[in-house]
């Protein structure tokens, strides 16, 4: 409680000092005080940066929570020998690419649809966004039931039209894709929302001009909507790629990486090591995941944002 009060009160009490600032400031005065960073910096460093740096150290130890022993890079060697890891790596990449790709395509299409003149637009917008509100664990439990190969609603419905549905979560060939499907189901609402925001902010004149030039719907979509919603695309790609690479809760709720190890991703391998009590090893995995995500997202974000400037 004490430290909480400090962080929330400090900026307020500082205000007593500020009135003097404009007068005394001279050429060094800036209204954008660095003090504004302070509460954020304190909370963020203490609760995020410090533990993160501590974890770099622990990734070099054999750590049972009760004691730790420095073993150099052994954990990293061991982690890369982990048989589930190669599978986990490819699965992580597949999962991230498939989900963020589908969110971009579906999100854009839905956004165009939901900004067009269509009956029941309000209803459609709400209903597409609805899954975003349900907790991941809840969605996982729900689809575990719906995707049950023998009793589930999905295979039941497919059976009616004569299709013998696969074991969505129990067949090694399908498990990962089924989870990706559910992830898209849950996340497409947010992507759509971002795209709607992007499309709505396209200046009216562009559309009118296109119309005057006699462009059809497809033409105006391709020449105006698509290029101008590029910032939205960047946002969706970056957010869903990070989400996809780090994705854990849904996979854990639905298959726990199974059957066997077939739907394991890096985060679930890390979590299993963690559960098994291999804290050093798991922390090493955390560091690896961090490097992988950074190596993919940073250049991509830099590349996408740079292009944007040229537009």
């Amino acid at each position: 409680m004490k430290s909480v009060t400090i962080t929330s009160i400090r900026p307020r009490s500082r205000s007593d000092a500020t009135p003097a600032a404009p007068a005394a400031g001279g050429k060094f005065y800036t209204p954008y005080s660095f003090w504004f960073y302070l509460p954020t910096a304190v909370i963020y460093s203490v609760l995020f940066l410090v533990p993160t740096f501590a974890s770099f150290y622990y990734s070099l130890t054999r750590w049972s929570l009760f004691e730790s022993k420095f073993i150099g890079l052994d954990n990293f060697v061991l982690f890369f020998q982990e048989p589930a890891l190669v599978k986990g790596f490819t699965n992580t990449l597949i999962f991230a690419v498939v989900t963020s790709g589908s969110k971009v395509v579906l999100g854009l299409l839905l956004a165009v649809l939901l900004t067009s003149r269509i009956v029941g637009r309000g209803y459609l917008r709400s209903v597409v966004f609805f899954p975003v509100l349900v907790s991941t664990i809840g969605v996982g439990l729900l689809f575990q039931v719906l995707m049950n190969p023998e009793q589930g609603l999905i295979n039941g419905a497919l059976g009616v039209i004569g299709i013998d549905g696969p074991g969505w979560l129990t067949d090694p060939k399908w498990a990962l894709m089924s989870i990706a499907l559910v992830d898209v189901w849950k996340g497409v609402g947010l992507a759509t929302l971002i795209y709607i925001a992007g499309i709505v902010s396209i200046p009216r004149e562009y559309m009118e001009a296109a119309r005057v030039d006699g462009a059809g719907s497809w033409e105006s979509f391709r020449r105006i909507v698509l290029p101008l919603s590029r910032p939205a695309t960047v946002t969706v790609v970056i957010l869903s790629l990070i989400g996809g690479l780090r994705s854990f809760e849904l996979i854990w709720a639905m298959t726990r990486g199974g059957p066997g190890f077939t739907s394991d991703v890096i985060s679930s391998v890390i979590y299993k090591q963690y559960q098994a009590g291999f804290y050093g090893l798991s922390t090493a995995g955390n560091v690896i995941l961090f490097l992988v995500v950074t190596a993919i997202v940073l250049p991509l974000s830099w590349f996408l944002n740079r292009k944007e400037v040229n537009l």
Partner: protein
Amino acid sequence: MRIGTRSTALAVFAAGTLILSACSAGSLGSSDEGGSGSVSITYLTTNQDQDVKEAEQLAKDFTAKNPGITVKVETRPGGTEGDNIIKTRLSTGDMVDVFNYNTGSLFQAIAPPKNLLPIDDQPYIGDLDENFKKTVTADGKVYGAPVGGFMGGAVLYSIPVYTKLGLKVPTTWSEFMANNAKIKASGDGVAPVIQTYGETWTSQLFVLGDFHNVSAAEPDFADKYTKNEAKYATSPAAVKGFEHTQQVHDLGYENKDFASAKLPDGLKMLATGKGAHYPILSGVVANMIATYPDAAKTVGLFALPGDDAAKNGLTLWTPGGLYIPTTTTGDKLEAAKKFLAFVASPDGCKSQSTAGAPTGPYAVKGCELPADVPQAIKDMQPYLDKPGASSLALEFLSPVKGPSLEQITVEVGSGIRKAKDGAARYDEDVKKQAQQLGLAGW
């Protein structure tokens, strides 16, 4: 100075919410702290239906005998998630006053001398079963009191199916497979072997429950295993467990929904005669009978069959342990000690039998099983009475146990991986655990 009402309001609001939040909701209703001379201790157990019932019954009966001490039951998930919570709470000094946890290899992994209170000086220590004591001993000191009974890792079978087809309880693997073939051929749609990979831990019994047969063939397996001299993949006896798992799948003896079915589905199949055999821990019997009372008579048990009928016997799991962490002090410590003494007494056993069917014999001298125990539990007795017909599971004889066995056996039992390969993979898996424990030879 004027900074404007808006920001003032905001600051007040922020401060207000933080003050409000300082007190989390806590528990509604009973506020038992602060009563004169009364002590309240918290007991942490797993969230399985049967465990909660048992814990609440124990708490109730204990308070009846010890007015002034109340026991609050708190729950945690079971399995590896639970392991993790126990470790985290112990390492952060945040454990409740008394907690229930596994014995054997998992017990060794929570650094008992550092985190737990030894109970060697307690009066009931002499009444505890020797086998049990071994599994809660670290550095020569005993740390846990038994809660629950011994469990058998065995095959539960449907007696009506056996009667109808005129089958005999098998003592060798080939007899067992012959029975399976007959059950399948009977055309009743009865699944010869129930597997429930929707709950992965249930997939391990062909391997773990086979250990009596392994040690009958290779008596020093456990020792060598700990020393990194024996391996599942290279020991002809040990690899059988994996091979059996694969065979059952290859011959199509599993129930059709084995990949998604969960424990309750498996119990339902067994209790209703839709499945004939279910390799599982006898600990699930109480749960089954709570839902299907008839199963007390219609479900029996036999040890996992091996190669040699003469040496066939039951693999046993010791009861769970009750432990007091070193963080429990003062009045609560005294109360916690009393609670352990109660649980490890005939009264405690009686209380547990009231809460649900026992899982097997108790590990406390003077504790009798009630006369009306289910048939499956009764079937364990002959193995226990006959010398050399039962042995503890490997996890109680060696601290080496890998975390991924259940995923591997799911793979082997689903045809994703071959038995030999699975065994080799498990050997890799245990390496990390052995290194973590700092065992010699790894």
